[in-house]
């Protein structure tokens, strides 16, 4: 993060904000302050235009037709696969599997790799800060296979206890699945080290990159992860599109996930042979418009530069932490040294829901509740938090508005 902090910030945020039509709307009569970026990001005009253009002039089903429209749609869709490959520096474009989103990607791995590699008495290792989507699919697998779900504990600051992690890795461990960045705490986990330690024991690692992909430069070959999963909608793209990156060797050895069109080579009533990567895992007509718009989102991020985004968000987060620190009675949940642009907190004994309702009335969109991480909230013995998460289109003035809003909340509930 230090290198990021030293990076010269070159984003023209005032100009960038004009690319996002929603940022100029009013909510409850107030200018929208959108601080729920960890849930989903807003969409820039080029992404909206790409969707519109596809349905207006390019719509056809892909991978089958010989007619011009189908050929054009197929290549427009497949170009995006290559864009994703380059974006995360995967070795081959067929290692990029398109899914519905992060949750779908994790379910795919749990249902295919998991079902073939995890047996009775085996263990799946996750962490205490996982999102429900990186808990429940593994729990379902473990129930089915009579395997055990093991959890890497965290400290009070919300950092993984790496010594405990090392102790939990054993010959029974069949896969490690950990978040790159925590959606509730903002903690950036030492994923490179996590992966290296697991690989010493030949255990594959899945990284849930949903909160990291748009904030940090992700290089899957450098990380050497076996699977990396993320969603387009958190990176300024459309909902309903996600990615599973997997190493070729692993993907080839995995059985298909869903059956249907596109994933087959030959079908008879006696026997079906399956298509090659990546199509083997992409049954049925995909979200073509979403995929193409996803490509526009990647172009948009690249035009700003991930390093620039990261540096700007880092500075904004530091500013927010400083300003919020002066709010009376604030208690931060998650104080990791390495952290991303997510801040979770509580105000004295004011319930997060109460705070959220009043902030909404002032046009400020934050997230309240358990953020789909109930076990993590139980760990901190709290019902939930108020979470503000920032993006490159947010400003220091908006942070000031939030601080003012919180003072108002305190006033109303004291």
């Amino acid at each position, binding site marked *: 993060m230090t290198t990021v902090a030293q990076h010269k910030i070159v984003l023209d945020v005032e100009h960038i904000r004009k690319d996002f039509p929603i940022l100029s709307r009013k909510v409850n009569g107030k200018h929208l302050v959108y601080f729920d970026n960890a849930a989903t990001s807003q969409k820039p005009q080029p992404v909206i235009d790409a969707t519109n253009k596809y349905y207006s002039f390019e719509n056809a089903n892909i991978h089958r037709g010989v007619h011009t429209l189908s050929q054009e749609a197929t290549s427009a869709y497949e170009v995006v696969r290559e864009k994703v490959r380059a974006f995360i520096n995967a070795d081959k474009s067929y290692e990029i599997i398109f899914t519905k989103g992060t949750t779908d990607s994790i379910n795919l791995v749990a249902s295919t790799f998991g079902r073939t590699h995890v047996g009775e008495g085996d263990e799946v290792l996750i962490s205490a800060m996982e999102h429900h989507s990186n808990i429940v699919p593994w729990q379902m697998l473990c129930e089915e296979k009579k395997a055990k779900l093991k959890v890497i504990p965290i400290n009070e600051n919300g950092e993984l206890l790496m010594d405990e992690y090392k102790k939990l890795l054993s010959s029974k461990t069949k896969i490690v699945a950990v978040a790159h960045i925590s959606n509730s705490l903002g903690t950036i986990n030492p994923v490179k080290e996590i992966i290296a330690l697991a690989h010493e024991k030949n255990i594959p690692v899945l990284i849930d990159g949903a909160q990291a992909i748009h904030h940090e430069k992700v290089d899957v070959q450098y990380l050497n992860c076996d699977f990396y999963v993320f969603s387009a909608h958190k990176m300024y793209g459309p909902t309903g599109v996600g990615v599973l990156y997997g190493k070729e060797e692993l993907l080839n050895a995995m059985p298909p996930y869903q059956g249907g069109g596109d994933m087959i080579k030959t079908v008879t009533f006696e026997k079906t042979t399956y298509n090659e990567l990546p199509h083997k895992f992409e049954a049925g007509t995909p979200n073509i418009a979403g995929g193409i718009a996803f490509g526009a989102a990647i172009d948009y991020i690249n035009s700003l530069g991930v390093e620039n985004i990261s540096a700007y968000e880092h500075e904004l987060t530091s500013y927010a932490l400083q300003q919020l620190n002066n709010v009376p009675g604030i208690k931060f949940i998650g104080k990791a040294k390495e952290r991303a642009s997510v801040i979770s907190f509580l105000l004295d004994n004011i319930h997060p*829901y*109460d705070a959220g309702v009043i902030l909404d009335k002032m046009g400020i969109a934050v997230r309240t509740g358990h953020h789909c991480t109930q076990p993590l909230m139980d760990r901190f013995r709290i*019902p939930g938090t108020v979470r503000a998460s920032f993006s490159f289109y947010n400003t220091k003035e908006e942070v000031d508005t939030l601080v003012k809003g919180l003072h108002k909340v305190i006033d109303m509930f004291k």
Partner: protein
Amino acid sequence: MSIKEIEETIVEEFGYYDDWMGKYEFIIELGKSLPLIAEKYKTEENIIKGCQSRVWLHAEAEGDKIVFTADSDAIITKGLISLLIRVLSHQTPDEIINADLRFIDRIGLKEHLSPTRSNGLVSMIKQMKLYALALKTKML
């Protein structure tokens, strides 16, 4: 008073506030001031879990009427609960089952009853009506 009459009174009370802040300050006061449920009823069994806040609800028969007590860990939810209890408690099962609770919309708070709010209120109303139905069967 009948449910309709109580609803009218509440609508009138809220009529004094013309901005959201006044309304919410009123709801917060309601939420703060009332002990709504006996501690012994704040059990796991009586809990209605919402994603955002938790609600406890207890019902018992008193003659031909039903008495509700409830609580929540969030004050705004608790304030709204106190309104619902004011309207529905000490009424007969039939009146409770048939109440349309339009007053919530009329005082400009229907957003809190949207099923997507997951603050437990929608489930609470459903549960109140189910209790009314169950106690009605017992009373027959």
